[in-house]
């Protein structure tokens, strides 16, 4: 899995993605700046592509950081309750401010995402039985508890339909002016890269980190803040995208190990590519209708996840 090939694949798929859709746009149409095609292209197609790339890279990196810091290959925003905590946060922001602006939602949801993830890490600290499969199960249970709280209050205040919109990841609603929050992924990627060595050391445990003079707790907290930031922005703009943060870092780890400085570019690229493939398939399979991205990723992702589980068993 060379970076070069990933980059070429990403470019080809991006190009393809720009010209797939209900209204047919050919590259030649874009020469006329005033045409309807150009307008659709700029308002819908380009934002959609950018959103997919940012969400794909961002969620994969978030998963990578979580797996490193929790020292467990099966922990990710999906399996640690981060996604569910974020949704609870969105609900709270909707109940608190009747017409919550994006920024208000963002801040409350971020606070919940961070608190939820911290709580999960605390639980993780207390658990003596650190089996690779057991930990994500605990995370899923934790997430379901949060999720049921969300559902309960959403029912009571009649916003259940509103809430389910955040449940399904969907790129068809992405348009100019609705996705820009996702750009937060870019500084997160940069910071992750700058901290890559520290995250790698932290991934070897607290004693190991302290031996090398690393401020372990601070690094863990920085990592969790980054994870919460990415997760919140992705849920607010696109919705839940399950499995992405789980499978992409695992696939990269099989080929390239866990040295973050080395694997970070691969993980970001592969995450974007994978999401792009799922999106294109979702758009093409029942053309002119669309299969939502969370369904596509859910089906393909769970298949890959099962494969990873069985593979692990074969090695253990």
């Amino acid at each position: 899995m060379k970076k070069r090939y990933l980059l070429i694949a990403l470019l080809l798929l991006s190009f393809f993605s720009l010209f797939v859709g209900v209204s047919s746009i050919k590259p030649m149409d874009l020469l006329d700046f005033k045409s309807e095609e150009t307008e659709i292209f700029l308002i819908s197609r380009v934002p959609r592509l950018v959103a997919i790339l940012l969400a794909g890279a961002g969620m994969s990196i978030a998963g990578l950081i979580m797996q490193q810091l929790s020292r467990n290959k099966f922990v990710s925003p999906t399996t640690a309750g981060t996604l569910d905590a974020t949704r609870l946060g969105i609900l709270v922001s909707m109940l608190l401010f009747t017409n919550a602006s994006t920024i208000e939602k963002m801040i409350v949801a971020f606070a919940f995402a961070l608190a939820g993830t911290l709580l999960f890490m605390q639980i993780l600290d207390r658990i003596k039985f650190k089996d690779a499969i057991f930990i994500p199960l605990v995370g899923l249970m934790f997430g379901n508890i949060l999720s049921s709280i969300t559902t309960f209050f959403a029912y009571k205040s009649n916003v259940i339909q509103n809430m389910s919109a955040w449940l399904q990841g969907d790129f068809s609603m992405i348009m100019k002016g609705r996705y820009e929050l996702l750009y937060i992924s870019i500084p997160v990627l940069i910071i992750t890269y700058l901290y890559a060595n520290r995250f790698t050391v932290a991934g070897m445990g607290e004693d190991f980190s302290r031996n090398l003079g690393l401020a372990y707790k601070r690094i863990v907290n920085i990592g969790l803040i980054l994870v919460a930031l990415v997760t919140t922005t992705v849920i607010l703009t696109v919705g839940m995208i399950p499995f992405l943060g789980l499978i992409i870092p695992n696939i990269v780890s099989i080929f390239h190990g866990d040295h973050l400085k080395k694997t970070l570019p691969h993980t970001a690229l592969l995450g974007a590519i994978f999401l792009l493939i799922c999106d294109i398939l979702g758009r093409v399979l029942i053309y002119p209708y669309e299969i939502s991205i969370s369904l596509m990723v859910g089906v393909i992702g769970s298949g890959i996840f099962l494969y990873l589980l069985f593979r692990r068993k074969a090695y253990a």
Partner: protein
Amino acid sequence: MIQVRELSKFYGKKAVVEKVNVNIHRGKITSFIGPNGAGKSTLLSMVSRLIDADTGEVLVDDHLVNKMKSNEFSKRVSILKQSNFMNVRLTIRELVSFGRFPYSRGRLNSEDLRIIEQAMEYMGLMEMQHEYMDELSGGQRQRAFIAMVIAQDTDYILLDEPLNNLDMKHSVQIMKILRRLVDDLGKTVVIVLHDINFASVYSDRIVALKDGRVVKDGPTNEIINSDALKEIYDMDIPIKQMNNCRICVYFNS
């Protein structure tokens, strides 16, 4: 020299380590021995700042350890814990490179690279430097960790039961390496050991702990005798002299 002064650690009301005073001499191998639960690992963890002491103080070369910056400390004292099981996939070379982390924060210069190569060379790991840690045998993995500590280039090297899960051949190999670190490179090594005969054959000094207190502290030949061992382990252990080694025959006592 590492000076331990009146060091105590309590879990609840129970003292795990109680008012321990020990001097660890430079350029020697010092072994911590004693029955299970004597507080050996806790003492080592406090000396290396992995856990905080409740009372007392530790001085490394006359500096109070909890006054030292963690980065400075990690250039003087390194510790390997028994639970270094790895589920992080790193190659040997990557792991050894992290030994330079206190100096370079991950941006390795040519001096760092030279030291990393040297450490791997010293531990005979050059041929397998690109292999992943999780695919190595226990002995190879322990050697890789020691190579990392060599790259960390500290005067003091602390090891918590480095022979755990190693077979006889690899245990002997590791102990010989530690001996060489002291004799060739002038390091100071402190080890927590379970096997008293490894302590007897390879160490210069022995500190014996029991119920959180130091019961014996001195040169190896003063500790390895039946009277002292009786006090430490409550067992009558005959000592046999073989090839200049004193062997404790405790198997049927």
